[in-house]
């Protein structure tokens, strides 16, 4: 199949495939939604595994880390909530704000019972009185509601809260605020949700992919879980691959696999890579050296990048990283919560500066100096991590592509002038979601 045909085909229906060496744990290629009998026949909702405090210990021993982006140790989070007095809540966070990620919606549309099984086991383990599923995607909400109907009563009541989609809506304090009836926008911290979350009560907010791993740890144990992945990043993860690759889509692969191997197994690239957008838009950009790096939370963090929610976008050699950064910064300037002054003003200022750098040579040494200053001074100046992500994007541009930046001092960049000045990065980089994943009309 030619590259062009492959792109056309996948634009209609993204690839969903395990590319791990071990049997896939979370993902299967069959289209359609997994029903309750299907899930039970795969071993779902079965009792007899780790439960309660023992489940928390098993999750700690498994080394499961949050798959929403922060990679925080899940066991630590569970223990913190279980140890607090009050009416505890657990939230399955399926509000997938990163525009290049599709894995949470796939999980909820295609495997709602896996998510609910994880949610109910986790809620029982921390002694929660109420469980929540928090999302924006309509078909996913329908799929989860159908799954709850199939189950009838659940040991702990589960409530679905649906919000309008927004980049910041998936942040944990935004989730807590929206479930309480407020706007889906982040709050200042402390308190963190484990201290005061839904209704001011101790609340565990966990990404739906994180929760999807819980039934597996509960049934098969931490040693089994650690058969995939690395010591500090055990298990598999869902990789959303988009951009200049032959088969953009959703894949499951062992943590620790190199990016180059992952891309090869996913069908390869359509051209030589110029670089990658990492972790949705949150991990900044990285050069083609990333091909040799393991997809491991700690290792990528050490390199100044991040795996985040597991979404990676490839851009080709014909794209200028300065223009890519300008496009993503325009997204941050548009999509921030519009709450914290330094974020509103800072992302706009960085967007304008990157656009100026991309457009032409005038005043560029001053522009570069200002950008470098903001990339340091704006860190930690927002209530959520959006501004840190925006500052980190600039840092990564200067670190990974100094020659490209320097070439803009010499004169207009041909690759930049071929770009639209403010491309919409959400449509440009995203993978279309298939309506064949179940959960209604899509």
């Amino acid at each position, binding site marked *: 199949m030619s590259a062009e045909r492959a792109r056309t085909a996948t634009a209609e229906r993204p690839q969903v495939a395990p590319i791990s060496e071990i049997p896939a744990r979370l993902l299967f290629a069959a289209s359609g939604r997994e029903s309750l009998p299907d899930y039970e026949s795969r071993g779902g909702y079965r009792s007899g595994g780790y439960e309660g405090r023992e489940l928390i210990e098993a999750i700690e021993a498994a080394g499961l880390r949050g798959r929403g982006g922060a990679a925080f140790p899940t066991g630590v989070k569970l223990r913190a909530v279980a140890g607090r007095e009050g009416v505890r809540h657990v939230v399955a966070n399926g509000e997938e704000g990163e525009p290049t990620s599709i894995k949470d919606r796939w999980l909820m549309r295609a495997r709602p019972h896996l998510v609910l099984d994880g949610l109910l086991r986790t809620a029982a383990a921390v002694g929660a009185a109420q469980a929540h599923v928090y999302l924006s995607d309509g078909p996913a909400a329908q799929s989860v509601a159908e799954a709850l109907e199939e189950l009838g009563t659940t040991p702990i009541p589960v409530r679905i809260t649906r919000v309008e989609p927004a980049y910041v809506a998936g942040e944990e304090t935004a989730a807590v605020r929206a479930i309480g009836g407020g706007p889906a926008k*982040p709050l*200042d911290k402390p308190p963190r949700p484990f201290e005061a979350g839904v209704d001011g009560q101790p609340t565990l907010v966990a990404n739906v992919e994180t929760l999807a791993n819980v039934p597996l740890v509960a049934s098969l144990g931490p040693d089994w879980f650690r058969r995939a992945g690395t010591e500090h990043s055990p298990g598999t993860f869902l990789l959303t691959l988009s951009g200049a690759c032959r088969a953009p889509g959703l894949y499951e692969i062992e943590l620790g696999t190199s990016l180059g191997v992952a891309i090869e197994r996913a069908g390869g690239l359509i051209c030589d890579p110029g670089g990658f957008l990492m972790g949705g838009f949150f991990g900044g950009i990285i050069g083609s050296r990333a091909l040799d790096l393991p997809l491991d939370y700690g290792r990528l963090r050490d390199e100044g990048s991040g795996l985040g929610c597991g979404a990676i976008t490839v851009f080709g050699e014909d794209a200028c990283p300065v223009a890519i950064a300008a496009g993503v910064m325009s997204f941050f300037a548009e999509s921030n919560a519009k709450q*914290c*002054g330094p974020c509103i*003003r800072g992302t706009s200022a960085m967007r304008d500066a990157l656009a100026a750098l991309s457009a032409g040579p005038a005043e560029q040494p001053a522009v570069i100096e200002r950008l470098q200053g903001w990339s340091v*001074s704006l860190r930690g100046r927002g209530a959520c991590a959006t501004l840190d992500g925006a500052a980190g994007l600039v840092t990564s541009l200067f670190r990974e592509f100094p020659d490209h930046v320097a070439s803009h001092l010499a004169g207009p960049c041909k690759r930049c002038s071929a770009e639209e000045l403010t491309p919409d990065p959400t449509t440009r980089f995203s993978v279309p979601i298939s309506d064949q994943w179940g959960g209604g009309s899509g």
Partner: protein
Amino acid sequence: MKLRLELTKCEGYGNCAAHLEEVFELDEWGYAMLKNDGDVPEGAEDRALRSVADCPVHAISVVG
């Protein structure tokens, strides 16, 4: 004494920095930045309380 600054509330009035430059600094757009993690130096407690009271949007509070 320790002060907390809520980033979602600050609108850049700048009264805090006028009262207590040891703890508050304003960025290029006028928004407040907390120095020394909000620790108020000894002897500056009265001015710290004025910075709390004079913030029109109640972005500053005493936390310890």
